[in-house]
């Protein structure tokens, strides 16, 4: 039984144009995936695919005009969309913790690192200040920050990007989360630091038995650090499965393009997901497959509604012409 189950999640940006007509940007169009304890799910896709939006929809942290308009988010036996705002807030930062891109600008610039760790803990528990302090020092040590006691007094601007990201991870650990959502946790960090941070995350997933969802546009990160993956395109998961299965037998043309374009550089963990071509217009999406304009296997059947179909053991893809793709792909 997985810890987090997202089913058919729809998130729209609803606004009015100058003529006062309602305009809807359908950014998430039926996102489904799940994550279990002890595993790392890689959510991968090009920029603008809706990866961050998925995370913030799950966290119920959308800012208007974004709004979840359909689907269910089941976490540890509860439907998060039915939760009262206050209960949801209790969940954030305790049961579900986030690690974000831009760690330096995500720390409160006017509060010392230690205080920030402490207040995340005291906000969610009845712990005393001194116990929280001891815990903060312990967690800073656990994420590999040297001289954690001194670091408690540091200001965010005194930290390097890598250090700040470790602090965010320590902060995530303050309340023993069940799920960690890491949104592009290493974008902007240099390669060695990137590897250290991801190794750390990986290790924590195993030692703490948490579930982790790593959002990235870097297929190399998925290959190196994730157990399962979900490929996202224009607000949908188009393929998901174990990382090895998907890499060995990519089924969706988009996944194939991604993997085919990266074989050797993938090993260096550097290749970015580009895929080529413009993303579809979210205000006017095709009726069936969203990939239709960029797909060389497209025909009329692709304009029918689609579903995530099983193509193997725990391996699903959203494409009506899987057979044609399998046969027609040059090897």
């Amino acid at each position, binding site marked *: 039984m997985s810890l987090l189950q997202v089913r058919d999640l729809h998130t729209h940006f609803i606004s009015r144009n100058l003529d006062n007509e309602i305009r809807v940007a359908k950014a998430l169009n039926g996102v489904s995936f799940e994550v279990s304890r002890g595993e790392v799910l890689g959510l991968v896709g090009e920029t603008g695919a809706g990866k961050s939006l998925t995370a913030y929809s799950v966290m119920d942290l959308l800012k208007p005009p974004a709004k979840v308009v359909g689907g269910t988010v089941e976490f540890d036996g509860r439907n998060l969309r039915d939760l009262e705002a206050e209960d949801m807030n209790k969940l954030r930062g305790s049961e579900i913790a986030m690690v974000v891109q831009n760690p330096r600008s995500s720390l409160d610039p*006017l509060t010392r690192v230690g205080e920030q760790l402490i207040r995340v803990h005291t906000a969610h528990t009845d712990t005393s200040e001194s116990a929280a302090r001891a815990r903060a020092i312990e967690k800073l040590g656990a994420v590999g920050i040297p001289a954690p006691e001194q670091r408690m007094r540091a200001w965010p601007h005194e930290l390097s990007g890598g250090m700040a990201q470790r602090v965010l991870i320590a902060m995530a650990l303050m309340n023993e989360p069940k799920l960690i959502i890491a949104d592009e946790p290493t974008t902007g960090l240099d390669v060695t630091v990137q590897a250290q941070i991801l190794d750390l995350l990986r290790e924590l997933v195993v030692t703490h038995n948490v579930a982790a969802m790593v959002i990235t546009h870097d297929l190399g990160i998925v290959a190196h650090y994730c157990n399962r993956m979900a490929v996202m395109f224009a607000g949908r998961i188009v393929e998901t499965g174990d990382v090895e299965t998907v890499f060995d037998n990519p089924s969706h043309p988009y996944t194939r393009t991604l993997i085919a374009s990266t074989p050797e550089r993938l090993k260096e963990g550097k290749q970015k997901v580009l895929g080529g071509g413009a993303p579809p217009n979210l205000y006017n999406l095709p009726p069936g497959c969203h990939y239709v304009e960029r797909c060389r296997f497209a025909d009329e059947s692709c304009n029918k509604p689609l579903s995530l179909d099983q193509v193997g053991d725990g391996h699903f893809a959203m494409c009506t012409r899987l057979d044609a793709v399998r046969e027609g792909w040059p090897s």
Partner: protein
Amino acid sequence: MLMRRLVLAIPLLIGILFFTFMLIRLGGQDPVGLLAGPTATTEEIEIVRAELGLDKPLFTQFWLFLGDVVQGDIGKSWISNRSVTLDILERIPITLELLLWGVALGSVIGVPVGLRAAFRHDKWFDHISRGISLLGFSIPTYFLALLLLFVFFFLLGWSPPGMGRISLLISPPPTVTGSYLIDGLLAGDLEVARSAVAQLILPIIAVAIISAAPIVKHTRAIALEIISSDFVRFARASGLPSEKVSRIVLKNSSTPVTTFIGTELTGLVGSVSLIEFVFAWGGVGQYGLNAIIRGDFAAVQGYVLFLALFSLVVFIIVDLLVLVLEPRAVAE
């Protein structure tokens, strides 16, 4: 940062002095004729001109002038026939009393309104406060001052006439700070203090209104930017209670809001002269305005120098405040 500001200020001040010096000298008004009187002969005029040093080349005049300024001598006002430095020093507390109370009141109203508007972004409070502050923006200072007098003195009779800083029937307190209110209190003369307050209310409200409008607008913009910052989003993602998140927003707004109010002060010190004029306030602003209208060279110079030095002092104070508020500033 502070040192750099001070070092940069020196050429800036000289530049301002030079610019106004030339502008006035080339402006066409000849004070010599005015000073010497209408019956003066050509020779008499030339004697006065030589006495004032106005027969020398412009750059020499400026150089001599600069030397005097450094020693605190800006020259003599031909209107008051006194040292401009003394004239201005005497009037600084008078203007400050009005300006500081007014901006303080404007901030006390404007900052919370701006913050609330940001927290209620796009709700009715936001819309209404924006509408009102737009009104405050569009009303000319001079007209606002007159309107206040018209309504509260003439129509309602709630306020004394706008004729100075104290009722004409009461003699001013012995000068200590230069503020009648404070000096009255220091002298233990409640009658004086009461009259000073009564005279202060309307002009202070005028300053408060013209300062509150931009303070609301900028505080709102500053808070909105902070609300949408990465660290506030992350604070929410950490499940901090909303009061804690609000406190983070407030704390991080304090530096930019303080800086903005400082900038406001440096702008208002000029436009407050119109309010002084309407209320016959008799501070530096009115003195400067008068000097400009009547072509009193030295006094205009003194006024401009005062404006520049005032801005400098305000920026230094703001820098010091930022140093207290911001750990980052200390590091730099």
